């Protein structure tokens, strides 16, 4: 539990993921939002965490190589024949 009056910038940055995940308790959520309303630095930090999530989301997932897929499909056929 965080004291509303005492939520510092240093404490707020540790709560950003809890905030974005909707995991903050009511009281902490109020303290978080009250702090943000008056703090450009923390507003920028939250915005950059959102940017980070957005950019990470544009990375391409690892693709299966054709060779690995061929091996697995062959294994599947063998499995089917033997079952």
């Amino acid at each position: 539990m965080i004291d509303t009056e005492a939520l510092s910038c240093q404490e707020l940055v540790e709560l950003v993921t809890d905030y974005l995940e909707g995991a903050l308790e009511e009281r902490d959520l109020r303290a978080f939002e009250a702090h943000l309303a008056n703090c450009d630095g923390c507003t920028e930090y939250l915005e950059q965490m959102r940017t980070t999530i957005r950019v990470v989301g544009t990375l391409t997932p690892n693709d299966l190589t054709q060779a690995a897929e061929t091996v697995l499909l062959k294994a599947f056929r063998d499995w089917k024949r033997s079952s």
Partner: protein
Amino acid sequence: MTLPDDELVAALKEGDEQAFAAVVREWHAGLTRVARIFTPTRAVADEVVQETWLRVLGALDRFEGRSSLKTWVFRILVNTAKTRAQREGRSIPFSALHDPARVPEAAVDPERFLPDDHPHHPGGWESPPRELPEDRVIAGETREVIERAIEALPASQRAVISLRDVEGWSSDEVRNALDLSEVNQRVLLHRARARVRQVLEDYLAPEST
């Protein structure tokens, strides 16, 4: 797009090769990322993923649908990876996975905040985040920097951010696949995102000296 579990299991049991190929492709990236937690190289991770699918086929008749098929496959993957690590005499970063609190790490360098005994603004920003130029955020070279930052994270953080933010899994899916508590999942995700954000800031808005 995967079929509902019961249809998928039925299709696999009937030997539907297309259904098998589709699910292998769809889950491949996630399986590889989780395998990488327990394996020293990408090549070994690929082998573990292959071995997992063979085990899945061998055990499919015993799948009872008490968890989702995806969760079940990931559990087999984790067991396969652990067994292999034991066989090869490698230690497994369990403690890092299950007790991230033991590895204290701040989201932001404490040096960037005013000291706790500051008269006006204890714990406030001394060096606030530097603005990121929006047009460069989405540039291809920025994505390469982020790829490298993720690759350099501790394995457990890498797995969580990859599954959540690259693959777009829900937090429940990640918790089930990695057998993590809700809190630990969030701690790992927070550390990973905070680290990537810092790399992004250092790259796009370097500190002026």
